[in-house]
Structure formats: structure tokens, C-alpha cells
């Protein structure tokens, strides 16, 4: 992506657009060099021939490539930590080009609307719009509350209606009977139940 073509990179837009696959492009680069003259200001994509545009610009359309891309393709992204995307946001229509020609003059003479339009031609969103809250957390909270609420209702319904009564073995009568048998058999004599029973007087220890 960042492999440059220093010897032939005369007009930056086309050579850099082609820089993704530099080794295969020697013929194309020389052709572009013959077509366009040297300029150090902003790249002028109107000087690129239509054949090269059809070849290399199928995704970005008639847009200038103005910088290095952080991804493999030159595409537009608005992120605060990489705020300078590789292509301009607006296509090079006649109005955009007219405004860009006006940009070469004094910037003090531009009106605020023109300045804003210039900004929007290059970038889609401002930082404030990128960082604006979306309010999508409300939708997430709705989903979470729905799930938790339905779970509680489900649990209540089953515990009140569908759970069968306790088995007979858990009744108080059988429970005491079982305890009595454990005492008589002398189970857990050291720390268990039998240690609390006085076998001589045949009653619980006090």
C-alpha cells in the first residue's frame, strides 16, 4: 500500500492509486506520465484519461485520492483516530470543481456557506457528528429488561403452579422417625446426632 514509485511519481493521484500493485503497472505509469504534467498542488483528476479511470477507479468513482489508506483499499471512513481518509467524500462534479477553483484564491473572501461546503466536499462528518451519542443504548436496555422480566415471570409461574408437592419422605412424621432410627443406630457418635443423646437416661442431653 505504501510502496511508492518515486522515480515516476509525477502526478500523485494516479501513481498512488496504482501503487497497490506496483510491479504490474510500469506501462500504465509511463502512460500517465506522458499524459499529465507536473504539479505540486492538489491532484487534478480531470487530466487522467478515461481508460485509466475505468481500469483503476471502479470503486471510488470520480474521486481524488489525496492520502495514504490505512486499509488495503482506498475507501472512505470517518473515525476520530484516523480522521484523514484516502479519498475525498464528494465526487468531482462541476460544482465541486468550481468551488475548488475558488479555493485557490483568498480564503478570507469565501463565505461561511462556501467554507462549510468545501469541508463537506472532502469529509462526510465532523468530529462532533462522529462522536455524537446515538441513543442505541436505550434499545439494548429494552431488550435486557424484556429478557430479565420474562425470566422472573416464568420462574414465578412454575414455582406457584407447576412444581409438584413435596414427596412423602419429607413429611414431618417420617422425618422424626428417621431421626429416631439414626439415634438408635448410634450414627455419627462423635460430632453427629448421637453425640447429643444421653443413652443412659434415654433422652436428649441438656
Amino acid at each position, binding site marked *: 500500500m505504501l510502496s511508492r514509485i518515486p522515480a515516476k511519481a509525477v502526478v500523485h493521484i494516479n501513481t498512488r492509486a496504482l501503487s497497490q500493485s506496483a510491479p504490474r503497472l510500469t506501462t500504465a505509469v509511463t502512460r500517465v506520465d506522458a499524459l499529465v504534467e507536473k504539479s505540486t498542488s492538489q491532484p487534478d483528476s480531470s487530466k487522467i484519461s478515461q481508460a485509466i479511470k475505468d481500469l483503476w477507479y471502479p470503486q471510488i468513482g470520480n474521486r481524488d485520492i489525496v492520502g495514504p489508506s490505512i486499509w488495503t483499499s482506498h475507501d472512505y471512513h470517518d473515525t476520530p483516530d484516523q480522521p484523514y481518509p484516502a479519498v475525498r467524500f464528494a465526487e468531482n462534479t462541476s460544482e465541486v470543481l468550481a468551488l475548488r477553483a475558488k479555493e485557490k484564491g483568498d480564503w478570507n473572501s469565501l463565505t461561511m456557506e462556501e467554507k462549510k461546503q468545501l469541508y463537506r466536499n472532502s469529509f462526510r462528518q465532523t468530529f462532533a*457528528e462522529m462522536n455524537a451519542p446515538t441513543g442505541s443504548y436505550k434499545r439494548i436496555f429494552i431488550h435486557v429488561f424484556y429478557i430479565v422480566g420474562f425470566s422472573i415471570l416464568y420462574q414465578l409461574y412454575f414455582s406457584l403452579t407447576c412444581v409438584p408437592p413435596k414427596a412423602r419422605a419429607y413429611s414431618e412424621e417420617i422425618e422424626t422417625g428417621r431421626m429416631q432410627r439414626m439415634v438408635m443406630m448410634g450414627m455419627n457418635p462423635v460430632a453427629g446426632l448421637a453425640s447429643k443423646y444421653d443413652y443412659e437416661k434415654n433422652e436428649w442431653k441438656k
Partner: protein
Amino acid sequence: MFRTVITASKTVQRVVPILLKQTPIGSIGCRKYSIGIYDYLQANKDLMKKIDSGKADGYELRKLLTEMQGADYIPGSEEIENLMNACRKLNDFSLAVRVLEAVKWKCGTDAALYNKLIASVKPTLDKLGIPTVDQIGYEKPEYWYPDADDVHNYDPETGKEL
């Protein structure tokens, strides 16, 4: 009588050069594990020279700006002035406003630092006709766009809320 003195001086003559030679007893590998601090001010100045002489353009400028944005670093007033002049030289108004916005974003909650920086570069901005972020009205969101990646809340084709 002088024999002991001469013997002693001969010993000194033999030993002192050996002591002064300081032959190393052992060698320890010495490596710099710190990557150091990249000098963005110097890189900025170098790029300004290149731009003035016509050897660099907005491509290199945006490359440096992206690196600066990724670093733990806030540009100073001199660098901001240089960047503004570079944008003027390259006729890229939108980039100048974007740089100011990026500086504001990097300052974060430190509004005092941002105000100080802007106050120090205000003469340059006025001379070039670049508005600050507050003047152009980008300190608050101007428009609202549906998020292109948000397919849960908005229809990606029409942009309307689902």
C-alpha cells in the same frame, strides 16, 4: 640507600600502565530497549521544507497527520501554524479545519490547553481566513446521518428507522 627507592619506582613504572589500561574484566551486552520519542516537530519542519520546495504534497501531509493522530501527542502552536500554512500552500481548506478539529479532539477534556493553543495561533488563522471550530459551528453536530454499519436500528438502503 637509594636501592629501595629505585626498586619501588621500577615497580610503579610496571604497574601503573597496567592499571591505567583498564582492560575489561568482562563484557555485558548493552541494548536500548526504549524506542525513544519520535520528534514530530522536526518531522513537521522537514515536511514544510519539502512542501515549500514542491517535493511533497497533501499525500505526505496527510500521512504525517495520521501518524500524529495515532501518537500520544498534541501538536504545539508552532506546528499548528506550520500545518495551516501547508494547507494554504496546497489549497486544501477542508484539511485545515479538520486539523483544528483533530487538535480539539486530542485535547479532550482539557479545554484550557485547547483555548491556549487556539489563542496562540489565532493571528495565523485570521490572516489565512481559516475559522476556528467554534466559528464554523462544528463544535456541535450540524447534521445527523444514519450509521451505515448500523443494520439493527436503521434500514441501510433508505436510512429510515426500522
